[in-house]
């Protein structure tokens, strides 16, 4: 068995059919599929270890707590965090960014007249929370453009980082362009001016080995469901300095040390940010999910495979007349391809491709400002994972050509 076949065999959903055709799942940037190791633990959390955590003294609660905290430790190891105390579990990337934005406001780190800097290639999740924060305090949002190759314009970025800027929030990899930003360099530029950096790692964490300490960022956020874990669990990595400094986000159980009606003291970081009953199953499942991701990222054969898939995908896309690939000149990209086809509406193409077994994303893909600048009608996006095969990509080319000939 090849490495790809071996990986693929661990994802039961990939053998299902759609409309009588074998499923080719190309919407991985929206959510990835789950391997047996994750599915099995997800089930075990229900049939074996279901209890609330951090509280009771009984066996089930101890087991659940241990598995949840094991998930946190696994995530810390996976991203090279200083310790598991730097890992806050949230419901996803969106929740992580909202947490930081809201706490910047509540803690007085973002005030009237201040600025937040983002890039043009952000997902709505890294735009709207900052708009809300800025509106609350009377701060403003500054947007730095991207270069033709899809990376953020470093000169314009540097110019935008004025003393009023209180945080730079930028994507590791754009969910539309698939281009990898030089986040270590970007962090260095911001830090030279004393500006903290939040990296949206929703796409980046899946396809690149991330070492938060090497990057030097203050926050790195991502979702579990894009990296083999279930939906509803996400990660906020923060430096000890920031996690200590920020006030709590939500109040409630599990985030407190001592409560009286007059005064409450809070639990230590990271529990300070995890009010209420967490997604215990999701947190636990982060362990097998990131272990799986790690084994793939460290597999040389898989790196070679990604390279082959990229070549094949580009050949297939180039075979369609009138097709324009976004950020085609990217120096470094993940296997994510957004494109437009002249005379073909993405909704129509996605509908026909679905009938042929191909799951693609179409539309604005939660990055309306960027997509609107590239197309009037939205785009199509094919995003691959290590379990996608050359054969699928070649079949995709045939299907796409067929759909286009029907629609023109």
């Amino acid at each position, binding site marked *: 068995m090849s490495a790809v076949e071996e990986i693929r065999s661990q994802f039961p959903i990939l053998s299902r059919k759609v409309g009588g055709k074998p499923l080719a799942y190309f919407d991985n940037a929206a959510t990835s599929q789950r391997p047996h190791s994750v599915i099995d633990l997800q089930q075990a959390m229900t049939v074996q270890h279901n209890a609330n955590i951090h509280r009771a003294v009984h066996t089930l609660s101890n087991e659940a707590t241990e598995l949840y905290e094991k998930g946190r430790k696994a995530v810390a190891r996976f991203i090279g965090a200083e310790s598991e105390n730097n890992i806050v579990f949230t419901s996803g990337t969106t929740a992580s960014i909202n947490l930081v934005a809201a706490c910047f406001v509540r803690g007085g780190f973002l005030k009237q007249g201040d600025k937040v800097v983002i890039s043009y290639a952000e997902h709505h999740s890294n735009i709207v929370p900052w708009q809300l924060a800025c509106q609350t305090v009377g701060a403003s949002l500054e947007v730095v453009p991207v270069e033709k190759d899809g990376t953020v314009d470093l000169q314009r970025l540097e110019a935008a980082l004025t003393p009023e800027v209180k945080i730079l929030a930028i994507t590791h990899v754009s969910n539309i362009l698939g281009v990898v930003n030089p986040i270590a360099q970007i962090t260095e530029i911001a830090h030279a001016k004393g500006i903290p950096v939040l990296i949206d790692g929703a796409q980046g964490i899946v396809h690149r080995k991330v070492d938060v300490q090497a990057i030097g960022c203050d926050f790195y956020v991502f979702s579990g469901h894009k990296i083999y874990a279930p939906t509803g669990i996400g990660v906020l990595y923060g430096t000890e300095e920031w996690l200590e400094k920020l006030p709590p986000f939500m109040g409630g159980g599990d985030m407190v040390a001592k409560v009286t009606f007059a005064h409450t003291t809070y639990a230590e970081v990271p529990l300070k940010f995890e009010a209420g009953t967490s997604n215990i199953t999701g947190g636990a499942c982060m362990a097998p999910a990131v272990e799986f991701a790690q084994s793939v990222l460290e597999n040389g054969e898989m790196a070679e495979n990604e390279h082959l898939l990229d070549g094949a995908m580009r050949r297939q896309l180039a075979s369609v007349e009138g097709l324009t690939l976004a950020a085609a000149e990217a120096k470094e990209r993940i296997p994510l391809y957004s494109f437009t086809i002249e005379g073909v509406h993405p909704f*129509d193409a996605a509908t026909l491709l679905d*009938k042929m077994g191909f799951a693609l994303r*179409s539309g604005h893909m939660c990055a309306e400002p960027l997509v609107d600048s590239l197309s009037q*009608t939205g785009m199509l996006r094919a995003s691959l994972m290590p379990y996608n095969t050359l054969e699928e990509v070649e079949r995709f080319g045939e299907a796409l050509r067929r759909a286009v000939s*029907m629609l023109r």
Partner: protein
Amino acid sequence: MTIAELQEEIIDEFSVFGEWLDKYEYIIELGKEMPQIEESCRDDSHLIDGCQSRVWLSCDNEAGRLRFRADSDAIITKGIISLLIKVFDGQTPADILAADLGFLDTIGLKENLSPTRAGGLVAMIERIRRYAADNLV
């Protein structure tokens, strides 16, 4: 013909297609053949913003019967719209409001009507019903 009869006619037409491909080729054909909406109606006031495809709809009341014209930038959406127009055009507001659109399910296009489907059709049907309600005597 009544709305129910027109729906039956469409169901008959679609019954010859065994393959999804033939069905969609026919829908695409219908989309391409659909008469253009007046250029002046392709504006924001006639726009029904679905998430992914835009739909324009105009409605005129001609002696108690509603005349619909529509357009979309997506051809499959347009084809399905032409089926809706066929069913609703020239009908009375009361008949439109009482209509059951079961035919879209019968001919296998139900997925286009799920509320999360991004094609704008659900919003379009709502707009047709609203026009009908507004014109109810």
